[in-house]
């Protein structure tokens, strides 16, 4: 089990309200650190489910070697109540989760404005978000763009399977200002994400956030906005935290040396076309007449 720093905006482990203040579950983290990497989960995650997902991710990070493993001291797992206590039906709560996401962003922004590095020096902030956690992030960045953290600097964000309508971050979008705040933005998307394909447009429409919008995490749009985009081909919505490719991307964003496998190149096998049989034709014999 790699990584242990935790912050919480939950009142309850399942469902419940957003806390007014961030609770540091493993103090003194993140106070006094030069760099803080916050992981933010998506909707319909209880605290235990989020913790399990985070742990697969941090285990993958630790498995990349000592360089990447050393990053874990900077990683913090954030819990927020993006779920309701409806058991198997809690996935239907999506339309009601946008308000908790915005409130989480508001309270987290207030907290981050109090952060300081060693001896009151600046601190670099990194965020790794999944699904609706990206909405929390973009709402947070919008608030930090409005009223910056005195000592916090948003260095980079990694957006996995972002459940955020493209219109919100496209030209004239309400969250565009926040999306431009980090020095580096890496968007990981997948065309094989069935949740963003089928459920997201319906959920957003039901929430009154747009009419059948396309999610950022579906095609990585708008392509000109993000400093880097990468498709994690084959990943469905819930696969990102457990995909070692995501851990590798984060390690690179944080500047850790990770082993890189050389791409295999194979020459496609080609065969000659089947020889076409030449049709034979017989010319009827004719006799010359004398």
């Amino acid at each position, binding site marked *: 089990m790699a990584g242990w720093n935790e912050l919480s905006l939950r009142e309850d482990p399942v469902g419940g309200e957003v806390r007014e203040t961030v609770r540091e579950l493993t103090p003194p983290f993140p106070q*006094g650190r*030069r760099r803080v990497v916050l992981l933010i989960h998506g909707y319909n995650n209880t605290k235990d489910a989020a913790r399990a997902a985070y742990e697969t991710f941090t285990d993958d990070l630790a498995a990349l070697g*000592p360089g990447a493993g050393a990053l874990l001291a900077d990683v913090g797992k954030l819990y927020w109540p993006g779920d309701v206590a409806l058991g198997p039906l809690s996935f239907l709560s999506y339309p009601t989760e946008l308000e908790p996401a915005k409130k989480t962003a508001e309270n987290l922004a207030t907290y981050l404005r109090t952060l300081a*590095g*060693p*001896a*009151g*020096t*600046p601190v*670099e902030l990194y965020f790794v978000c999944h699904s609706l956690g990206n909405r929390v992030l973009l709402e947070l960045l919008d608030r930090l763009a409005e009223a*910056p953290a*005195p*000592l916090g*600097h948003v*260095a980079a964000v990694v957006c996995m399977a972002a459940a955020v309508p493209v219109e919100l971050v496209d030209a004239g979008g309400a969250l565009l200002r926040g999306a431009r705040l980090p020095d580096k933005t890496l968007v990981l998307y997948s065309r094989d994400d069935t949740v963003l394909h089928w459920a997201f447009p319906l959920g957003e429409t039901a929430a009154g956030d747009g009419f059948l919008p396309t999610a950022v995490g579906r095609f990585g749009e708008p392509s000109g906005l993000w400093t880097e985009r990468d498709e994690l081909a084959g990943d469905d919505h819930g696969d990102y935290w457990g995909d070692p490719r995501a851990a590798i991307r984060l390690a690179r964003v944080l*500047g850790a040396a990770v082993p890189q496998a050389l791409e295999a190149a194979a020459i496609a096998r080609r065969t000659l076309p089947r020889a076409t049989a030449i049709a034979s034709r017989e010319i009827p014999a004719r006799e010359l007449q004398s």
Partner: protein
Amino acid sequence: MDIPAAILKMVDAIYARAFGFATALAAVGVISMALIQTVKDVFPIRRWFQTYRVRDWLSAQAPKAPAGGHPVSAEAAETDLVRLATSGDRDAFYDLAIEQVTAQMNAAAQMVLDFPWLHPDLFYCLAAQGDAEDLRRLIESRPPERGPRPPLSDEDKKALLDARNRVTHQVQRSLDGLMIAVGFRWKFWLQIASFVVSALIVWTGLLLFVPEPIEVLARHLPLYAALAVLGGFLAPVARDLVAALQQIRK
């Protein structure tokens, strides 16, 4: 003409002539390795070696550091390093394998990079190859003696973070370099020691067990010396040669 049989015949001939010599040298190699290992286990050779190399490295770093007139003391840096890395236990620190020594140095370096003004000598030694402006910026980021820190502009905040990132990278690469250099030097001297010990064993054997009148011995001394040096070089690999020859014969 049976070419494979001819080649095998030649291998057999080499085996018949060289096997005795190679076996003797293999025994010399084993004895010399055992002697060196015993000396390493009984005496803290590696600790002395690493103490010398790290001190030497810090002494070489100190004059290179762009300290802006601040006199950099390698001795003070080393004392601070041992205090931060192993709570002042010098023997425990230098007794580690070099990979662990540099890992402990890296852990100490994190504290130094967080509070460089508290550890100026060690900071300048570790970051000697860093940019002078970056080092100055980090040293001057110390909080005021009294009252709150004046607010930083966005540009100052970004510049300080960038400087810290560059210096951090530089320090980590310096420690990597130290680890590689010390590891290489340690292996190199072990190799030299094995040559010397093997040569001494061969030399002793020749002097003690080749019965010759004194005047013949005196004439043969250069030859024995050459044999001893040759044996010294070959002994460490003789075991592998013997094993390879036996493998080929099978």
